[in-house]
Each structure stands twice: as C-alpha cells, then as structure tokens.
C-alpha cells in the first residue's frame, strides 16, 4: 500500500520541476486527493505535504480541492492540521476568508499548547494581509479580528498584532475612525494588559493603541478620557518602549485637546488639561528607562513654557499643533539603499592614505652576530644541533621503551578503562537555582477577558452580516432564475465570483522613499543571489528515492508478528518481592522443621548459630503455594550408611564475605542404637578451611542421637575464592551404642559446595540493573546456555530464582531478568527467556568462571 503512494510522491516531485506539464500535474493532484481521503493518517499527512509542494508551482490545480483542505483543518490530528494550515494561503478567496478566519479563531480557543496557537495566529494574519490585503473585503471586520486576537494570552506575537493594527489604520484611511475608537476602548482597559509585561507580549498592543490615539486624536470620541486613561498608574509597569510611546502621544493628545478648546474659546479647559499633565507627567519622569525619562522631562519643560505663554495670554495651541504636523507614512524597506549618491562623492576612494609597508629587516643575523667569524661558529652550532637531534631521537625511543616497561610492571598504574569518570561528574553537578525558570501564572484574568470588553466590536457580527447578505443575494437570484428559466438553475452558478465583490475600503500603498525612486527597479539583486546559492545546493536525489522505497524483503505477515512479539509488559515489582520472600520462607520453614529438639542445641566451638540477616524482611505470605507445591529444597545428601544419614545445606550471608556455614542434618536410622560423640572432620583445601580450634582436630557434634531421631548442627568454613566449586573430603567418626556395647564407626563423605550457593538474592531495582549492564560497566564476562524444559515459565522462573538465590528484577510474559550477588561482591545478572520448550539463560558477571559454573549448575538442576 505504501509503495503505490511512494510512487505518487515521486511523481509529485518530478512535476514540480516541469512547469509545463499541466496534465501530469492534474494527474498527480487527483492521486493525491485519493491519498488525502484515505483513512490512514500517515497517508493524509503525506498527501497534504505533497499538495503543499505543488501549490508553490501550480496553485490553480490545488485550489480546486479547497473543500478537502478545509475539511482537514478540522482533523483531530495536530500534524495534519498544521499541514493544512500551510496550504491555506493558496486557498483563500474573498468569499471564504471570513469563514476560514472564524474557524481558525475557534480552533485557537480550543487549542492546547501555545505554539500551535501562535502558529494559528500567524496564519490568520498572513492570509489576511496577503497580497496587500487582496482578500479582505470588510476592514472593520479585520480590525475587530485583530482586537479579538488581543484576548489571547501567552502569545509571542503581540508585536505582530501591534504592527498590523498600525498598518491597517495608517493605510486604510476610511477605517481610521473605527480603529481609533476600538483603540480607545483598549486603552481604557490597559490594566488588563499591563500584568503581562514581557517584551513581545500582548502589552505591545498598547503601543499601537497609544500611537494611533495620539496620531489621529481628532477622530477620538472622547479625547480627554483617553488622555486620562494613559495616566493610569499601572502604565509604569509596561516595558520602556511602550511607555515612551505613551509619553509622546500624551503630548499629541494634549495638543489636539487644547486646539479644540481654544477654538471653542474654553480657556479654563486649556489650563485644566495642562495642569493634569503637569501633575501626572512626573510619574514618567521618574522611570528607570532612559527614553521615557527624557521624553517626560522634555514634555514637562514644554508644558511649563506653554503655561508661561498662556499666563501672558498668548493663544498657543496652533503653534503647538505645528509640532505634530504632517502625515507619517510607512518607510519602504529598500529606502536606505535607494538614497542617491550625491555627485562628486566616490565611496571607493581612500579617505586617508593607506599605511606604507614596513621596511624589511634584511640581515637579521647581522644585528646580533659579529659578522665574518660567523661561519665557524655557525658550523659548530649546527653540528651541535645535529648531534642533539640524533641523540634525542634515539633517546626518545629508549625513553619510550623504558616508560612502557615501567608502566607494565607497575601494579598501581591505571590502564585504560578504569572506574567511570561519569560518577565523579555526577557528584559535582550542582543544581543552579537561577536556571530554574519562573513563570507568571495567569489566574482569573481569563474570565474577565473572555467576557469581552464593552464596546469592542465582535468579528462575528460582520461575519453574520456578510453571510446574511450573501443568502439574500442568492435568494434574489434564484427568484429571478425561476422567473426566467425552468427551475434547475443551481445556486452555485448564481454565487458571485470573487471579482464581483468589491472591497468596502481602499488600501493605500503609499510608502516613503528617497525622492524620485521607486520600489520596483533593481530590487531583486540580493534575493537572486541568495536563490542561486540555494539552488546550487539543491541536489536531486529523486532517482535514488525509488531504490529506498522498494518493497521490504519481508512479507507483511512477519512484520505484524514481529510487532506483536514485542510483548506487553506486565511489569510489576510486587510478584518479584513476593517470590523472593517465598524462597526465603521456604528455607525457613524447612530448617525449622528439622529442629526437633531445640534444647539440645548448644553453642560450642566452631559452631555458630545461623545468622538471620539474609532471612530478614517482612514475610508476606502471598502465594506461598507455588514454591511449596514444587517442594524445592536446598538440602542435599551428604553421606549415608546403615546407621546414619547426613544431609547438608550451605548458607552464606552478605555481612560475612568469606564465611560459609554448612548446616548438616544428622539422622539416626537405627531403631535400637544411640549415636554418640560424633566427630566431624574435614580435610582442608588451600581455599576452604573448617574453622576449628587447632587445625586437623575434629569438630565435635554437640548432641547425641537417640534412635530414629534427627538433629542439625552447623559448621563454619572460611573461604577465599568463590570462582570454583569447593570439593572437600571429610570423615565422620561416631560411636554406635546399643545394649550390648559400643563400637566406633567411620563414615567418609565428599562435601561439594557449588558456586551458586555463594549467591545471595540482593534486591536490585530495574534502574540499578540497567546501570550495571551499561556497556562501560564491569560485567565483562558473558555466558549463555540453552536447554529444554517441560514446565511453564512461572514454575521455571520460581525454580531458577530459588536455586540461583537470585532476585527477579523485572518480568515480562516469558522473559525475566534476575540479579544476585556473591558474598564477595561479584554481580551476576541473568536474562531468562522461554520460547515454547526452549529456555535460554544469558548471564553477565564480573567473574567469568564463577558465572559459567553458576549457570551450569543451575541448568543441571532445572533439567
């Protein structure tokens, strides 16, 4: 499915380069429409993306599918909406502009995430201002849209809005009065904007509001009120450039007011207004921003001067108004470049003479050396230098070798791959408090703003008006059509084309330029150069694209199964801890059963009580059923004859790294005789030694066994290295006493302690396990084994964790990771996987022989 569409995309990219093949473009567009209508979101996205590319070269063909694009605007997928937005600017026309903008504004309110909202706002403004406001019919509506956009919080586009507001008001003369009226309302509610005083924030709109009110003060409904609004105390919290505009426009407003007042003959008012300014301007004069201060101070001075003149009775307003005479037009972008160079000025000439080159020092040697005698000296020095060079080369070699040897023999020299430096770095990381961003919370303002300020025009009003007007037009035409012809004149034919709609206001395109220059000629040099450079980088990779998009080798069925096989995680920690507890509980219950006669249990030499540390932890009796039903035990047969049988278990604890406790259960098989004075002796090996008073003496077992009685005794061994299983030979000498007499018996045995008995199930979190397993870690040894098992995964895992004394860290369906630590600190990490009947165990550890032995032993037990 993807392949066909991939070919479509290739078609698209080809068509954009061949501008004359309209038929192929049409074909592409048709196919893309199919893509976009598909229910798969990915295809929709790609279709829209391709549309966007075609739009640049063939806008007309894409425009025919306006309806589809508008539909995509409502899609719930944000990426698709963004792509549809990109296409919008080619889709708008005078008719649907209002509708589209309305839709976008509705989206804006619903949108989460300010970037999307900003994007939307950008778009709205872009499509409206496109082509010199080509599509905007009703400028009152547009101004009201801009005003409504100011209600948006947290936007980065405040400046954009302000710029556009000013642009509209300046260039569309007819709309000025309306715009200024709206701005006055905004000014009166400036306190709502003032709280958000970031640069580029929404308070920028006040910049526009103040400027427009000041510039077109004669159009203001109530100039005095606006003047007073500019003096509100919150104004001082606005950014500096906004405040400076306020100050400037206060003076402009003042001039307008007194002009009017003098015409009316209202002297008192003139003074009154002047007094207000004098009272309130100092507020600005104390501002921390330099520009504001300067303007306020100049204004204050001006006022004082004006008042002096007024005291003398001179009518001053007309002269004041000359301060602000003339129209301000927008300045063209290329204006600076177009300033003509006056005659006689050559910009390429040197202003000052370039500095002359410095005099070369010809014979440096002559400055420092004495002259003719040099040759001899030079020769000698050269020889010396040569000798020094040779010596140093040989020397270097010798030195290097010596150094390497020293390093090799030095046991303290750290070779590459020492303990990770990252740990040190982490310790040094200090959280810098200043970097934590502080956000201002906007609480409560939303409600106020959404109510709508009184008097602000709503853009909906204009939209509805326009819709109604259209409907009535359509009805009229239909009536005429019915009168004229037989019924079936469709309303679509009656709908007026774009050109018939005339804009209600005219947009002026007067821009300021240096005299005599026009904007058009030789404008595009710079742009062309840039385009050329960019075009050179445009490598056409489209032929190779076909290769990349060739169908993958695997069939779709394997793809799906592969996806399904990444199994869902039933990733809970609780069954892990309960399993650990289960295995411990099992041990505890077994060992307690064997303690039949606790009173006989005395502490004697070489015998210790089993340390309870590794059995600690709250015993959660959850699901003990599993292990008990499996009857797992770590007790193994040691030796037996007709009178006595011995079973043993090895126990270790983390606290005692080099100690091993072997707990032996003695059972008297004889029904008539008592077993007395049992002596337990072990032949020590280099690695493992039985702890006793003096070496080679036997350890006495501290109890006697009555017939058919069992008892348990512990023996302590000290162990050095754990890498290999410990195999020890031993003898038990005991006295068999019956009614007739006593005889001495001997029982030889072989004590084998496998590596896995040295492991302790230390709890480990998934995070620490992941850290341990990191590639730079210490677990260099790897070992794997595979075997077939008949049982299900749960049982197998339970058995494995019991035998290996490992803690199950994470489990996911038929895979589990386990961790155990030896008493000497060797980490063992295991990954267990069951596929059908095949169980695979992968292990990682710091010690390779330990690891391989552990895994081999465990697999033996699982078979």
């Amino acid at each position, binding site marked *: 499915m*993807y392949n066909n*569409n*991939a070919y479509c*995309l290739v078609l698209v990219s080809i068509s954009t380069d061949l501008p004359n093949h309209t038929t192929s473009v049409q074909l592409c567009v048709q196919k893309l429409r199919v893509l976009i209508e598909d229910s798969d*979101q*990915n295809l*929709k*996205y*790609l279709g829209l*993306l391709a549309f966007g590319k075609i739009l640049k070269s063939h806008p007309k063909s894409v425009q025919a599918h306006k309806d589809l694009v508008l539909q995509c605007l409502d899609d*719930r*997928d*944000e*990426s*698709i909406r*963004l792509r549809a937005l990109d296409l919008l600017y080619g889709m708008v026309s005078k008719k649907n502009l209002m509708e589209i903008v309305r839709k976008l504004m509705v989206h804006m309110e619903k949108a989460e995430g300010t*970037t999307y909202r900003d994007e939307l706002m950008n778009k709205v403004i872009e499509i409206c201002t496109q082509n010199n406001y080509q599509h905007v019919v009703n400028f009152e509506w547009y101004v009201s849209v801009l005003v409504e956009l100011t209600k948006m919080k947290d936007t980065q586009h405040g400046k954009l809005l302000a710029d556009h507001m000013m642009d509209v008001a300046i260039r569309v003369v007819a709309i000025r009065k309306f715009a200024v009226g709206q701005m006055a309302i905004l000014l009166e509610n400036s306190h709502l904007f003032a709280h958000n005083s970031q640069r580029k924030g929404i308070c920028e709109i006040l910049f526009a509001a103040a400027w427009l009110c000041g510039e077109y003060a004669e159009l203001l409904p109530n100039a005095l009120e606006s003047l007073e609004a500019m003096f509100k105390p919150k104004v001082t919290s606005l950014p500096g450039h906004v405040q400076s505009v306020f100050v400037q426009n206060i003076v402009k407003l003042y001039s307008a007011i007194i002009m009017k007042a003098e015409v009316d003959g209202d002297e008192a008012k003139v003074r009154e207004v002047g007094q207000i300014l004098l009272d309130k301007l100092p507020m600005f004069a104390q501002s921390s921003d330099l520009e504001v201060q300067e303007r306020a101070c100049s204004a204050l001075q001006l006022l004082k001067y004006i008042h002096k003149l007024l005291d003398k009775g001179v009518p001053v307003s007309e002269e004041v108004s000359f301060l602000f005479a003339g129209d301000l037009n927008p300045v063209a972008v290329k204006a600076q470049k177009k300033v003509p160079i006056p005659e006689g000025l050559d910009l390429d000439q040197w202003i000052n003479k370039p500095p002359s080159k410095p005099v070369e020092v010809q014979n440096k040697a002559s400055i420092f050396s004495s002259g003719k005698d040099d040759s001899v000296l030079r020769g000698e020095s050269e020889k010396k230098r040569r000798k020094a060079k040779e010596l140093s080369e040989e020397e270097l070699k010798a030195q290097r070798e010596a150094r390497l040897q020293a390093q090799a023999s030095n046991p303290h020299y750290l070779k590459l791959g020492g303990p990770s430096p990252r740990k040190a*770095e982490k310790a040094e990381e200090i959280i810098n408090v200043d970097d934590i961003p502080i956000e201002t919370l906007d609480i409560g303002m939303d409600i106020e703003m959404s109510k709508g300020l009184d008097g602000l025009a709503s853009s909906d009003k204009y939209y509805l008006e326009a819709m109604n007007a259209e409907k009535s037009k359509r009805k009229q035409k239909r009536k005429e059509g019915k009168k004229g012809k037989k019924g079936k004149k469709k309303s679509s034919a009656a709908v007026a084309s774009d050109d018939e709609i005339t804009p209600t206001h005219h947009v002026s395109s007067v821009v300021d330029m240096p005299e005599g220059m026009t904007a058009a000629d030789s404008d595009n040099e710079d742009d062309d150069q840039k385009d050329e450079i960019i075009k050179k980088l445009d490598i056409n*990779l489209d032929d190779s*694209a076909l290769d*990349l*998009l060739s169908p*993958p*080798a*695997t069939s779709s069925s*394997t*793809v799906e199964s*592969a*996806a399904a*096989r*990444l*199994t*869902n*995680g039933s*990733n809970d920690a609780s069954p892990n801890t309960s399993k650990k507890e289960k295995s411990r509980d099992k041990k505890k219950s077994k060992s307690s059963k064997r303690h039949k006669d606790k009173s006989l249990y005395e502490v004697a030499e070489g015998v210790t009580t089993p340390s309870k540390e590794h059995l600690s932890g709250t015993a959660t009796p959850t699901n003990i059923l599993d292990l008990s039903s499996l009857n797992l035990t770590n007790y193994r047969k040691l030796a037996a004859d007709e009178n006595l049988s011995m079973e043993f278990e090895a126990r270790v604890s983390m606290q005692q790294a080099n100690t091993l406790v072997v707990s032996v259960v003695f059972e008297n098989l004889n029904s008539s005789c008592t077993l007395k004075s049992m002596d337990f002796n072990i032949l020590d090996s280099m690695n493992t030694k039985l702890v006793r008073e003096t070496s080679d003496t036997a350890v006495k077992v501290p109890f006697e066994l009555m017939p058919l009685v069992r008892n348990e005794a512990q023996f302590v061994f000290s162990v050095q290295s754990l890498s290999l299983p410990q195999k020890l030979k031993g003898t038990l000498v005991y006295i068999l006493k019956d009614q007739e007499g006593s005889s001495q018996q001997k029982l030889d045995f072989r004590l084998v302690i496998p590596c896995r008995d040295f492991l302790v199930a230390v709890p480990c979190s*998934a*995070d620490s*396990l*992941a850290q341990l*397993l*990191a*590639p730079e870690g210490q677990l260099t040894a790897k070992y794997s084994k595979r075997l077939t098992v008949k049982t299900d995964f749960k049982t197998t895992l339970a058995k494995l964790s019991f035998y290996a004394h490992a803690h199950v860290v*994470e489990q*996911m*369906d*038929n*895979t*589990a*990771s386990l961790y155990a630590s030896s008493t000497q600190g060797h980490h063992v*990490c295991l*990954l267990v*996987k069951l*596929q059908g009947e095949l169980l*695979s165990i*992968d292990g*990682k550890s710091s010690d390779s022989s330990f690891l391989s032995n552990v895994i081999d032993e465990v697999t033996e037990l699982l078979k």
Partner: protein
Amino acid sequence: MIKAILVFNNHGKPRLTKFYYHYAEDEQQNIIKETFQLISRRDENICNFLEGGSLIGGSDFKLIYRHYATLYFVFCVDSSESELGILDLIQVFVETLDKCFENVCELDIIFHVDKVHNILSEIVMGGMVLETNTSEIITRIEEQAKLEKSEVSTPLYPYSLFWHYAVPYRVSAL
C-alpha cells in the same frame, strides 16, 4: 540526515539513545524528556510524523516514531529524509533486533545494550543510512559474534600462534 535515534519506554525511561549531533549531557536529557512529552500525548490512530520540539531544532526537524508495545522508537531527521523511508527503517531495525534476540522485548534491550548498539551501527552511521536489508545486517552481526567467540575460546595459545590462525580468517571475513 538523521539527527538522533531514541528508544524509550512508556514511562519515558530511555533504553537507547544515539545522537549524531553534539549535545551536552544535560541537553540530551532535556531533549529526551521533551520528546517523550510530545510523543506520549499522541493518540494511537494519529499519524506517525511530528514536528521536532524546540530543543531539537524546532520545525526544521521531524520526529518520526513508531510505538511497539512498551517501547517508542523515535528518529529525529531533517528535511532531506523521506518520512516513509524512515518509517520503513524503524521497521527494519526492529525486525533485525527480533531476529537477533528471538522474541525481543524491553529486557533484551536493557541486557544486551552493547549488542543493540552494534546492530544500530550496522544500519545507521554518522546520521547516514548504511544498510536497509535485514539479511545483510544479520550476516554481519553473526560474523561479529563468531569473531568474538573465537577470541574468547583461545586464551591459552601463545600470541604468535593465534595471530597466524586469525589473520587469514579475518581477511576472508572482510
């Protein structure tokens, strides 16, 4: 060019991160967090293409992702890469992992991080796509594994003997 490849689980824990562009450690962590926030919000039937977050380059870069059970595989690419091609590449990557690890799951990626990195290097190197054919990649990985095993299993031979044995094998393997 591929800027970064991230694999994280449903809780935002990164399981594999590879950046083909230099970022400081803390920047990398922030990028992972931001990408997770952007992607975890996505619905199931929404398209797999996304604009990059602000930390990773904004709208110049795209995030193309796929969600498999507990893991998100995210590729951050620039505009020169085709979206469908990258989607396919993610599929190739996951399939290769599946073939190498049999029934691959998140635990495998944690346990065999080095192997996963090796597989990824066979596919993408320096931000450029090297190989898209699954069987090719697997052949190479198996060769690597063989080499590793042969090195481990002959520790007792004197170095010179081992060298003579190993050189012709290595040359033929290349």
